[in-house]
């Protein structure tokens, strides 16, 4: 257990009310204010604000169904029909000057997508056409932006596939998506999104089908771009190992809202929102380096027929967007919930350097926070 810095015991300061017109943080490449996404009257993303600076990686984590993918798509104006978006998403186009993407026209958005901001969607299959070879699709993406020759585009497509670890990339470029394995498809989509070196890459669960080595290779490819062109990455992920190892800041969502945001180490080592603690408590015991005697090493699980321990999971189920409880949406599942929580929506409050929390009882969250969710003998 790493030593966690103790948060200063200063009273939390209420953040200024989020306004779509609040200025971008100095130097931000992407600046989001009070972003909301609704299906009709039903709001599923409920007021997110964050900034991403050049070379920065922001992780978006949270409960399945919390609104991460809709947020990711909203950043590029790529939401399904029937949704309305409000708030502000600004992309820097020159020092001190920003383009507003919420409400931008289709041609304006189309001009930015791919070159300035690109999406790696969660559903890799949907990003690829089944009727064209993968390499042709990548080459077409290059040609649509740069007026390069066919053969140059082709060479860049093969190089991009090679970079994400597709073996024998020149041959594989001629294959169709259905001839790729799940993990290869995922990598092809990453290659496609990054091929024009956009300033901001929004990647939605880009490594779910990849083992640890490939995952790191792919994240390195995304990282090289950041170094080379000062790009930024918004990474939606369930993999807290990726969050810890590859991101600078993390924003934790529950039921469409931010529950906590801050520097990655700080949030993971000393979470102040019970929901964040619950996520950490649910992880299976960490992988041991030596591969010792677990089934991943081939041998039977120690203890023979003894049944496995249960993982501590959060009690209850996530709320349905059209039946959110009043006050804090996490209250029905929260071990610290009290009356106030069921009446008033909490925060956000700034509890330390760049660390914001939306919890009435953030100061009562224990250390280590995972203790909140340990199954206690009755």
């Amino acid at each position: 257990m790493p030593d966690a810095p103790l948060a200063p015991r200063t009273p939390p300061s209420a953040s200024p009310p989020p306004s779509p017109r609040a200025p971008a943080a100095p130097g931000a490449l992407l600046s989001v204010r009070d972003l909301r996404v609704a299906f009709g009257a039903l709001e599923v993303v409920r007021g997110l604000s964050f900034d991403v600076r050049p070379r920065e990686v922001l992780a978006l984590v949270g409960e399945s169904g919390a609104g991460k993918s809709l947020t990711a798509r909203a950043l590029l104006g790529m939401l399904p029909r029937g949704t309305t978006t409000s708030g502000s998403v600004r992309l820097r186009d020159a020092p001190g000057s920003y383009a507003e993407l919420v409400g931008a026209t289709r041609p304006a958005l189309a001009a930015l997508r791919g070159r300035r901001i690109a999406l790696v969607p969660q559903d890799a299959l949907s990003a690829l056409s089944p009727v064209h070879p993968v390499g042709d699709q990548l080459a077409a993406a290059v040609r649509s932006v740069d007026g390069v020759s066919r053969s140059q585009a082709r060479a860049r497509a093969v190089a991009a596939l090679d970079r994400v670890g597709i073996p024998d990339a020149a041959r594989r470029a001629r294959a169709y998506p259905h001839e790729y394995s799940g993990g290869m498809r995922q990598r092809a989509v990453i290659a496609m999104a990054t091929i024009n070196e956009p300033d901001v890459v929004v990647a939605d669960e880009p490594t779910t089908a990849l083992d640890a080595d490939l995952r790191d290779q792919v994240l390195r490819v995304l990282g090289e771009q950041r170094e080379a062109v000062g790009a930024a990455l918004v990474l939606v992920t369930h993999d807290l190992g990726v969050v810890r190892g590859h991101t600078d800041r993390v924003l934790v969502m529950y039921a469409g809202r931010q529950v906590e945001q801050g520097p990655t180490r700080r949030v993971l080592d000393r979470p102040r929102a019970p929901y964040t603690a619950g996520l950490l408590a649910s992880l299976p015991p960490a992988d041991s380096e030596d591969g010792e005697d677990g089934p991943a090493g081939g041998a039977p699980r120690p203890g023979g027929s003894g049944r496995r321990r249960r993982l501590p999971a959060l009690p209850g189920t996530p709320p349905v967007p059209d039946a959110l409880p009043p006050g804090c949406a996490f209250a029905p599942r929260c071990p610290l919930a009290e009356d106030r929580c069921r009446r008033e929506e909490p925060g956000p409050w700034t509890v330390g350097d760049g660390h914001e929390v939306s919890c009435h009882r953030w100061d009562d969250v224990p250390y280590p926070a995972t203790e909140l969710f340990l199954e206690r003998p009755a």
Partner: protein
Amino acid sequence: MNQHTALLDVRDLVVRYGAVTAVDHVSFTVDAGETLALNGPSGCGKSSTVAAVLQLRRPENGSVRFEGRELTTLSERELRPLRPRMQPVFQDPYGSLSPRHRIRDAVAEPLRVQGRWDAAGPARVAALLDRVGLDPAYGDRFPHELSGGQCQRAGIARALASEPRLLVLDEPVSALDPSVRAGVLNLLADLQDDLGLAYLFICHDRAVVRHFADRAVEMRGGRLVPA
């Protein structure tokens, strides 16, 4: 010692795509009540192996015995009554479900097909959704109206609806956050303890495999290799 028959007995399985051999003489067994993890790097042939086990793609060679019956020589019609007993959960969360059917109907279908649909059917469907952590209100939706993780859980609920003996789980929890994932893994463990379900389990997360599987085999370039 060797008297007992494995629930699933795979011998010398071969899958070829044209000139490419994706699965090259792979053999393994899975017992009732057991979880076997199929590990290996991306592209090594795991999904191809399970497709051939389930006879979704006929293998070029080899034998697949399930509950003592050889599947590779059965016709599609002969396979049909066996299919509910070996259910897949696919790698692509949206791939397990037809885009044209509401979640409720997708989960109910196995009950209908097996003639087990009755007055208690709707409650069974609701209970299955609830057990995978999906509010039954999501039953009204179509797959594209669900998040990735919600869709993955709907696929698991559907696979469980037919009361299988063997679940073939290809990255079943990869789209789930840690807490929902823990709930689904606990559910699968409980079902195994209570009903003796067997799992053939593909998951790239070593910590999850270590926690969840009884045994593991390792694949590289289409072949099993010593772990």
